[in-house]
């Protein structure tokens, strides 16, 4: 064990240590910097997110992991002062290229948020909203089918099939979050971004979501930001450790939690700061 008494003594590496790149990348991030006005939130991050992998992003509060996640489907566009440089390649195209349209991008790279945020509509309408929005399905029978398969995939169908037309906001927190996941997969995205999806949930609901993530990973690429190292260890294939806006280390999850390459990562996972 390498002992770390003062983390500031350990310099942030110039390049990410470990294995940030992948041969089978769904999204390739290259030299991305993110600024909020004058303040730089992300420093020169390069990372591949592999097809059908679950990549967890961990790090102390304010390290930029959520910002990084939101950059991946340009959710940061809604913040006026946010500026992104570098390249993020998805399906051969730079999503920050001037000609890229965010609407189809967000249909292909979906997002689940920290707090369950169902629309104040019925369960059915929550799930059917995305497909209707993009004109994927307009016939009632098609919509019915999408709603059923999405809710089934999200593990919610059996619990709500008798009350599809009751408000989505009337469900419990964990059910609401699974409804949000169903809503996201209803538009059949390639990537699902999850921003601390379990931080507002109790342990049982958390366990269900984690189970769901494992199931979904067979069909979708999932990037998950989490505060819980146990959760990262349970659900992810690879783990990326962020520190003060820098991507310090990316390695297979098992390695990160047993034998990290960088002293900062070790200091974090052993709980010396956080």
């Amino acid at each position, binding site marked *: 064990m390498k002992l770390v008494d003062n983390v500031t003594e350990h310099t942030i590496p110039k390049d990410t240590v470990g294995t940030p790149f992948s041969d089978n990348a769904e999204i390739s991030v290259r030299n991305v910097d993110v600024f909020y006005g004058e303040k730089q939130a992300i420093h020169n991050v390069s990372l591949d997110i592999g097809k059908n992998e679950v990549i967890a992003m961990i790090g102390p509060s304010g390290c930029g992991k959520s910002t990084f996640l939101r950059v991946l*489907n340009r*959710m940061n566009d*809604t913040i*006026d002062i946010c500026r992104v440089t570098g390249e993020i390649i998805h399906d051969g195209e730079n999503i920050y290229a001037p000609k890229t349209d*965010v*609407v*189809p*991008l*967000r*249909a292909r790279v*979906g*997002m*689940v*948020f920290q*707090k369950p*945020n*169902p*629309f*104040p509509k019925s369960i059915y309408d929550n799930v059917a*909203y*995305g497909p209707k*929005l*993009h004109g994927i399905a307009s016939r009632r029978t098609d919509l019915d089918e999408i709603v059923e398969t999405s809710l089934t995939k999200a593990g919610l169908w059996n619990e709500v099939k008798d009350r599809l037309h009751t*408000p989505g*906001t009337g469900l419990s927190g964990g059910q609401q979050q699974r409804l*949000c996941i169903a*809503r*996201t997969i209803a*538009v059949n995205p390639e990537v699902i971004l999850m921003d601390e999806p379990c931080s507002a949930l109790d342990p049982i609901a958390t366990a269900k979501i984690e189970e769901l993530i494992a199931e979904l990973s067979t069909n979708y690429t999932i990037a998950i930001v989490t505060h819980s190292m146990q959760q990262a260890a349970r659900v992810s294939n690879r783990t990326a450790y962020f520190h003060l806006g820098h991507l310090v280390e990316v390695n297979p999850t098992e390695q990160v939690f047993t034998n990290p390459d960088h002293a900062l990562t070790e200091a974090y996972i052993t709980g010396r700061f956080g």
Partner: protein
Amino acid sequence: MTNTNLTQRQIIEAGLKKRYRKERAFKAAGVISIIFGLSWLVLLFGDIIGKGMPAFKSTMIQLSVNLDADDLGIDPEDATTFNKGNYDRVIRNAIRSEFAEVKSRGDRRSLGRIVSSNAGYDLRDLIKENPTLINTQASVWVKADSVVDDYFKNYYSPQKPGHILTDKQLIWVNDLIDRDKVTFQFNKGFFTSSDSRDPESAGVAGALKGSVLALIVCLVLAFPIAIAAAVYLEEFAPKNRLTDIIEVNINNLAAVPSIIFGLLGLAIFLNLFGMPRSAPLLGGMVLALMTLPTIIISARAAIKAVPPSIREAAYGLGASKMQVVLHHVIPLAMPGMLTGAIIGIAQALGETAPLLMIGMVAFIVDIPQGITDPATVLPVQIYLWSDSPERGFVANTSAAIMVLLGVLITMNLSAVLLRKRLEKRW
């Protein structure tokens, strides 16, 4: 520890009494404020209702009128001649026949004045409805003059001075009362007729309809414009110096004295565009200018209150900006927007000053049929009546205030109900 003799617990307990006393005083101050406000409200309402209630009933005198077609000067077969008939003479004859002993010219004229000068019109309307009455001796109830009305309502019993009947009129009226020929009836005319020189015949129908028409114009113009402006400013406009200036100016506009808007209407709508004077269309446009900032401000607040999580959810699914606004922001902000609109409209309903500038203060006897007909509105009617010298208008003024308050309460109540219905939880 500052005091070694006392434990911390004793120090806390020692201070408790003072703390609770302060708390009680604080609560009492609030209760006193509310009682103070409420007592003024009760006083105001009590005064208005007390003064206004008599206007809802009118004093009627029973006369036996001889509806001879020749006397009336009408052709019973031809309804078009009914308008030209001399109904006043028939009524005059009827009242004279009640008091056959009155002979002198002056006394007979004075006797005729105990019946409303508009009684002839009421009789005409009665004949139009029931032409079979022609050439019969009919017993009809006609409106008493406002002086008699005032006497019967306020001074007949208990006997006290203050009425302005002449001594002879007093004897005749008391005689009629003794013969049970004087009674109260519900003053339907107050709600069906428009302004009149005579308090007993004046009604709020014209002003009420004028108000409704002006408010419809105001709402139709102001609501969509205000919502569009609010949505643009909140959702689309870049945050820069220009939008800051716009924001400050909208807030300023809300505080501009309403008479300025009246002057603007006079200068632009009347003089430049040559729009019809005194019309609800014009009034509604001026009121819309005035209400616009109020609705914009409340609509912006309502849009701001839509939780960002809902927007994020929609954006995250790939909704475009317009779809986010149309599908989520506006529906969720609608209760707040409607409340703002109704508050703005309620404010417009009570507005007098700008309408004075555009001629809605005229004496208008006809009920407006459309938005381009000359009209007046309720608050202006109240202002006009409160300025009239006849005693009967005191009651009319208060009664019109009651109607105005009734409309206001209905509007505010509907705002609350609408809000409850539309409100969704998230």
